Structures are given as structure tokens and as C-alpha cells.
């Protein structure tokens, strides 16, 4: 159901220590990427409560990105592992709800991976664009 001129609204949660820093590095390196993402900063991806994600879809966000430190790099020892477990479960639930898997994505970005951050954003934006708006 690809719609022409559809600009997805995507929400990204970034942890303060790795992925948010990575996003900043994309900036300092002037790497250009799609302007469809709005970032919310949390201290650790472990902070992210499934409610936040569900609420986002509820208010009409088209896609949600969770970006944490690479496994092993977590500033809070192992918060990102806990996130991984949580998101895994949540995804199951979403699929039961019939919400496309691509609308929720968990990925890792280190503070040195500005380029990676940008390509994840672009990739996500394209996928959501392909899926079309989230209308329920």
C-alpha cells in the first residue's frame, strides 16, 4: 500500500552513552540522512518500557527504533541485554496484533558509528515508506 509523498514519522529511543553519541557523530561528520526520525534520549536502552512503544503506535507513529550499545559495551553493565529480551517478547505480541514486524526495530550503534546510525535511519525510513502509514 505504498503511498506517494508519504513521509513516515518515526520515533527513535537512543541510550545516552552509545547510540545517542553515535547520532551526534553522524552530525559532526555531516553524514546526511532522512529527516523522518525524532530521537528521545534515555540513559540506557534498559529504561525503555514496552508501554512507550505501544503508546507511540497508538498516537499514530509509523515506526519505532530502539538503539542501544553493542552487546558487551553497555555503560550499565547489561541493560541492553535486558532490552533485547523485552523487545523480543514485545515483537511477538505485536505480530499477534497484526502489526508489521518492520515497524519496530532494535539495533546497536556505538559512539563511533555515525555512519551506521545514518544508514539504519535511512533503511528504517525506506521500509516504513514501503509499508505505508500506520493507521488503526
Amino acid at each position, binding site marked *: 500500500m505504498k503511498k506517494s509523498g508519504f513521509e513516515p514519522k518515526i520515533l527513535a529511543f537512543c541510550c545516552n552513552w552509545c547510540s545517542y553519541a553515535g547520532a551526534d557523530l553522524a552530525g559532526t561528520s555531516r553524514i546526511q540522512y532522512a529527516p523522518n526520525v525524532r530521537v528521545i534520549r*534515555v540513559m540506557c536502552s534498559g529504561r525503555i*518500557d514496552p508501554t512507550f512503544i505501544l503508546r507511540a503506535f497508538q*498516537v499514530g507513529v509509523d515506526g519505532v527504533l530502539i538503539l542501544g550499545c553493542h552487546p558487551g559495551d553497555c555503560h550499565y553493565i547489561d541493560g541492553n541485554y535486558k532490552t533485547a529480551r523485552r523487545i523480543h517478547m514485545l515483537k511477538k505480541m505485536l505480530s499477534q496484533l497484526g502489526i508489521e514486524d518492520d515497524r519496530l526495530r532494535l539495533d546497536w550503534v556505538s559512539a563511533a558509528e555515525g555512519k551506521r546510525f545514518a544508514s539504519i535511519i535511512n533503511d528504517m525510513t525506506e521500509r516504513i515508506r514501503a509499508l505505508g502509514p500506520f493507521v488503526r
Partner: protein
Amino acid sequence: MSDVRIGVFICHCGKNIAGVINVPEVTEYAKTLPNVVYAEHNLFTCSADGLSSITRKIGEYKLSRVIVAACTPRTHEPLFRTACEAAGLNKYLFEFVNIRDQCSWVHMQEPEKATGKAKDLVRMGIAKARLLEPLEDVEIGVTPACLVIGGGVAGMSAALNLANQGFEIYLVERDKELGGLLLNLNRLFTSDSKAEEVIVPLTEKVKNHQNIKVHTSTEVKGVAGFIGNFDVTLDQKGEEKKIKVGTIIVATGAEVLKPVDQYGYGDKSNVITQLELEERLNNGVGDEQNIVMINCVGARIPERQYCSRICCMVAIKNAVLIKENDPRAKVWVLHRDLMTYGTEFEKYYQKAMEKGVRFIRYSLDKLPEIVGNNKVKAVKVYHQLMGKEIVLPCDMLVLTTPLIPHEDNQDISRMLRVSLGEHGFFLEAHLKLQPVEFATDSIYVCGCARWPASVPETISQAYAASAKAAIPLRRGYIRSEGITASVDEDKCSGCGICVLLCPYNAIESQSKDGKKLAHITTAQCKGCGTCGAACPSGAISMNHFRDEEILAQVEALVI
């Protein structure tokens, strides 16, 4: 929320932001949003005049929240927080909106979209700001005393350093004498000076230091309290003693593996360990003419994968001492890799070669074999680099075995709620940059309790640990950011999920008037929020990142 008065300051950052984003437009937009009573834009908000403007406007417009939309909080948040504090506004009522690093710099070709995104971000920031609450940085007093567990070279060095800085030290050693492993050693590499030349003067200084209370034949029985304020119970031969300390240094050392049933150890009379050889060398060597040493006995094997770092040097040192005592003696060191890292060790290895010590490399798939009945007469080794078996005459076989962690590291780790690593040595907070710290504040580790180390390395770690301990001791308090979790006791069901999840052991289940409740030691909380995300009854709120705050941001994303 009606009484909330928000001020918005938007930065041009020269052309960095204004070159892409229509800053005036965003400013005007901000003014239209609820609770915003003031908005301005500056060339550089972080410049002297930018900052003073923030401080001024807080007064003029009685602002109760401040938002700066600019570069990135990672570098500039502290700066703007100070500007708020200067005007008497709690620094946690400040919110940063990132419109440079994550907006203008990454959408340079799409000014309209960038401007739109900036508006969204500002709107989201304002939504959160409305709900922000003042927080206080937590300050916990620190008992100005330090408990050092272990009276070896590590413990004593740490104790002495701190004592010389004027702090009160309790040095606890479970044996009846101070000195630890060094008491059983002969000479130390690379200077070959006698172990007692190091340990005796150190012990004297420690014993005679007014700030150090030495407790030998004593064990730590219990540790209560929390960071900065520990109530420690000592057990001196059944006699209990209670002390209060603010910091704890774990310097319990390690022990040498006894290679039971390997290469005839235990049943052949002329097979000994390096440690036993040290004693022999101490009491003047025997007249053995052919000495064979086998390295890595019980190390770098599937069951015990690690390399114990110092054993190669121990073997080489003892080989050299034998040669110096009797140049005619033949000494072979059978090894798998010679770990003589750095300047001094490599030089010592050369010295051994000059003295005629011979080194033979063997591999794990063809281990050396012993020949002889009640005594080892010869050692057969497959010389990897010659591709043939060599038979070495042998009057004495010395087995080089690794350092292994003490059994009771378990108890200590449980008592202090600090972790052990995979091999049973203590686990530091961060392998690279926090080698002598634990994830828990005010508890530190040094020496072989952490990992096998040479004497100088151990002393360095001891000093490092005392440097870390000296910080809270000197300050008299530990401060941590107000960004911590708190429990709403009415909602808490006492399920204990948070207790398990907390990476810092900051949460424990406490029973309060018959009800089990999660209790957070604020000082120990680092504000990751994992607990808040997991709490099934919504009892835990992660301050400054509370559910309402984040949800408000989420909802504000879509108009």
C-alpha cells in the same frame, strides 16, 4: 500545569544551525505552545552573553523551566544547567533539545524538513519540560576509615599509602602473620633481591603506623550498611569485633595450584612445584645436576584456559639462581610460550640464555613424559621446533603451576555484593578503564585477588586502589546525580523483579510493617532505569526520565 512558565532559547550556532533551519520561524512557533511565556534566539547561546541572557530572563519572566535548542547535551548541558542554577533555578528543570548534531548538520539539503523536525523536537522537549521536577544531587556522608582485607604486599601497600594520607585503616589478615605469599618466596625478579628485603620493612612500617590497626588471625564475618557507611563484623579466633568504615579494599591475593597426580607430583620424591623450589633455594640448594622445569602445568588447558602471567618469570628466575649457584648444573625449561613481556622481563630472559639455561617449546598435543619409578630419572619431550623427541636426564623435576583464586572469594563476593569473573577472580567495574574499582562505589580490589600480577604490578594496583578510596575519604561524602530511581511504597508489591535486574545491587527487598518492599539505596543507583521499565506495578519511577515525562514526549511527536 498552568503555573509552569517555560522559557525557550534557540541557538543559531553561527551558521551551523541558522544556515539550514529557519531559527526565527521555530522561535515564533515555540511561542505558540502552551506554558511558553518567553522565547528568543541567539547567535551563540553558549557564549557569555547567551548564558547571561538565560540567567536574566529567568528572573524577568519568572521562568520555572528552561529549554535550550542547540548543539548537543553531551557537551553543553552542564554549561546551561549552571546558567539556570545561577538564577536559582534547579538544574533538573532544564531540558536540552538537540537541533544541530541531530538536525541541521544531517539535513543540510532539506531546510524545510529540517525546520519542521526542529519544531517537532522543540515541541517534544516542551512537553517533557512541563512535567520536569526539581531534583537534588544525593550526598551521602562517608565514614573516614578504610577496611583493607588481606595483609599481603597488596594490602599492606594500600594500607600504608592511605595511612600516610592521614586516614584510619583496619588491616585484616586471616593468617597469624602479615606478608602473604611473599613469606614463602626466596628471591624476586627482576632484581633478585630477597623477598624479606621487601616484606620486612613494609611490615614494620605498617605495624608501627599510628593510623593502621592490624588484626591478624582475623576474618571478616559480616558486612552491613551501604556505600560510604559499612558496619563490619570481624572475627578474631571466635571473638567478634564491630567496626565502621567508609571504604573497603579487597586484597586477598591468590594461591598456587598444587598439581596433584601430574608428572608424578605427590608420588615421585623428586618432583616439586616452583613454590617448593623457592623454599629449597632459600635453605641453600641441593646438588642436583640436571633440573627440568615444565611450565603451564594446569594452565592454558581446556579446564583452566587462562595464562597466569607471572609463572614464566618465576621459572626463569629460579633457573638463573640455580645456574648462578652452580654453573655446571644443567637446567631445561619446557614451555609453550615465554611470557617475558616488557623491557625488564625480556632482558632477564636474555640473562638466563647467557647463563646457559636452555628453553624447549612443547605443544599441548604432545606433552612431556616422565621416565622412572619412585624417582623421575628422565623427561621425554617432543621438541616441536626440531620435530623429534628429546630425552633429558633429570635429577629434579620442577612443575610451574598457575595462581588460582581462593575458594572463599565466593563468601567475600557475597558479603560485599561484588561479582567474581569466570575463573573465580574478582570482577572489576570495567576491564579497561576501571581495573581496581567494583561496579559498587567505595569498594575496590587490587593484586592477585583480581588477577595474577608481579610484585611491582601488585603494588601499583594497591596504590591505585588507595587513590580511588582516598577520593570519598577526603571529600567526606559521595555525590551522585539526582537522576535516580525511587519507589512508591503504596504501589510496590514486593515482587522483587527489580532487585534481580539492578546491575548495581542498589535495590533490596526490605520488610516494612509486615509487607515486603523494594528499597533503593539512592547512593548506589546509577540511574539506568532498568528497574522502572520492568516494574509490573508501576511503583518505581526513574526520576528525570519518568514514564509521564517520556510518554509526554512520545505523544507530542504527532500533533
